[in-house]
């Protein structure tokens, strides 16, 4: 590992450990060098695995065209989902466990089988998917003020924070995920809207992109992996304590409450 990569990883790990956001890492690895950025992501992941976390899946980011344009890229990115990031519908999360959290509503795929094919297709992904769930992703940045380029966010595990999974599995049979409507509510008021079509045309397309990218990078997806396929609408800040409910038509709803304890 080069010294710049380990320096960038150390900076991000320290921010997470101390709960204090850090400056961007683009001064170390460049603003747009994706391979360097993924190398930092791997280094951070290796440190988390040494500390006992286990990879439980993946998250896809930058799946909406406006966000891609904002970052000057033409493809999504991905990060790792660790087992300690997974939470269940209806639970409470300490807001202070995150640095600068935002939430977005998504469709989560749960794989029933490994995907081994060298260049997975939509068919391979559909065949491997056991079921889908409504989900809320908590995105978070270790980088102060979300001052990120594409390189910064990939290095920082695609700005991942946590995942809240719904509890109503649905089969993909006969389900057109492009036609899933999404309403995200904060304490009963709708704050974000969208649909499956906003996620690369369909979350299935996003999942297929991810499967290919993972196989290419020597990390093929495995049975049991949770794949967060990307936001169906704009992400919103978590302003403080409060409840977020995501309603996904045809998939059900998922809810999480942020609390501030001892305050």
């Amino acid at each position, binding site marked *: 590992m080069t010294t710049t990569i380990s320096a960038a990883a150390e900076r991000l790990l320290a921010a997470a450990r101390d709960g204090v956001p850090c400056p961007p890492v683009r001064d170390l690895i460049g603003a747009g060098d994706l391979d360097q950025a993924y190398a930092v992501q791997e280094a951070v992941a290796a440190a988390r695995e040494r500390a006992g976390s286990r990879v439980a899946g993946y998250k896809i980011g930058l799946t909406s065209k406006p966000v891609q344009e904002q970052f000057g890229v033409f493809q999504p990115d991905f990060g790792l989902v660790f087992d300690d990031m997974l939470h269940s519908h209806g639970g409470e999360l300490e807001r202070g466990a995150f640095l600068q959290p935002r939430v977005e509503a998504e469709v989560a795929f749960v794989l029933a089988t490994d995907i081994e094919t060298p260049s997975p297709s939509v068919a391979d992904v559909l065949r491997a998917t056991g079921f889908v769930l409504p989900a809320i992703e908590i995105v978070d940045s270790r980088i102060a003020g979300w001052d990120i380029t594409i390189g910064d966010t990939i290095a920082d595990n695609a700005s991942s924070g946590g995942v809240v999974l719904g509890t109503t599995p649905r089969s993909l049979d006969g389900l057109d995920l*492009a*036609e*899933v*409507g*999404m*309403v995200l509510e904060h304490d009963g*008021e*709708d*704050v974000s*809207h*969208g*649909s*499956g*079509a*906003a996620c690369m*045309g369909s979350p299935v397309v996003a999942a297929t992109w991810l499967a290919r990218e993972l196989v290419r990078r020597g990390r093929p997806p495995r049975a049991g992996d949770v794949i967060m396929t990307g936001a169906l*609408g704009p992400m919103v800040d978590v302003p403080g304590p409060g409840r977020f409910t995501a*309603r*996904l*038509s045809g998939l059900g709803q998922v809810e999480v409450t942020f609390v501030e304890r001892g305050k």
Partner: protein
Amino acid sequence: MSLEESEVVRLAHELDDAQTSARAVTGRPEDWDVASAYRVQRHLVSRRQSRGEQPVGLKLGFTSRAKMRQMGVHDVIVGRLTDAMDVPDGGDLGLGGLIQPRVEPEVAFRVARDVDLEDPRASVVNAVDAVAPALEIIDSRYRDFRFTYADVIADNTSAAAFVVGPWAPMRPLGNLAVRMTLGPQTVAAGTTGAILGDPLRGLRLLAGICRRHAIRIRAGDIILAGAATAAVPLTEGVVTGQVAGLGRVSVRVTRDRSGGGTS
């Protein structure tokens, strides 16, 4: 500030001329009240009627919370539709007679019987019997869509043209995926939930506003519920709006000076 009748007439003429000549107005009152703005709208529409146009319904505006926050208002606005704005599903609309048109995907309701607004319990929701996918073309007569709350009411809430797709029986509308395409490109994706959380909420607000400003709701009227996504600039080509489970509606946009809003 309440306006003198002569000023109401002058402003209505100015806005009407802006529409017929496809040239934006330059000035408007600095400070005026909502009631005066609705008086201008009424005069503007009766001037159109004196040219032979028939009233065919109403439209709701400012139905998104983001838009309300942006404008600093808490109430939806109502505009009037005439047959000259009505473009048949699959028909042509010319850009020539428009100033700076934008298009939004919506749903439309059909009013089955007159609503007696003298009755305080009158329900618009109970008076509608069908819903359809729709496209609305808005075209502010103010340069660059820069207007105050009163300004846009006077300008008949930017109404320019609309297209209504096939009618379907009423059904839950709180979260149906909505997609708008321009040619092969998806230009907007969202949900009917973006219309006040549920388009029926708009209908519930309509009676009060119509009562305050003496706007009638009659059998046969079409009510455009408000935008399901942000408006997109209208350019040449086929625009299609699609509402999951409701079907689709389209319009062919040409460079000609013809079609809705240009009579």
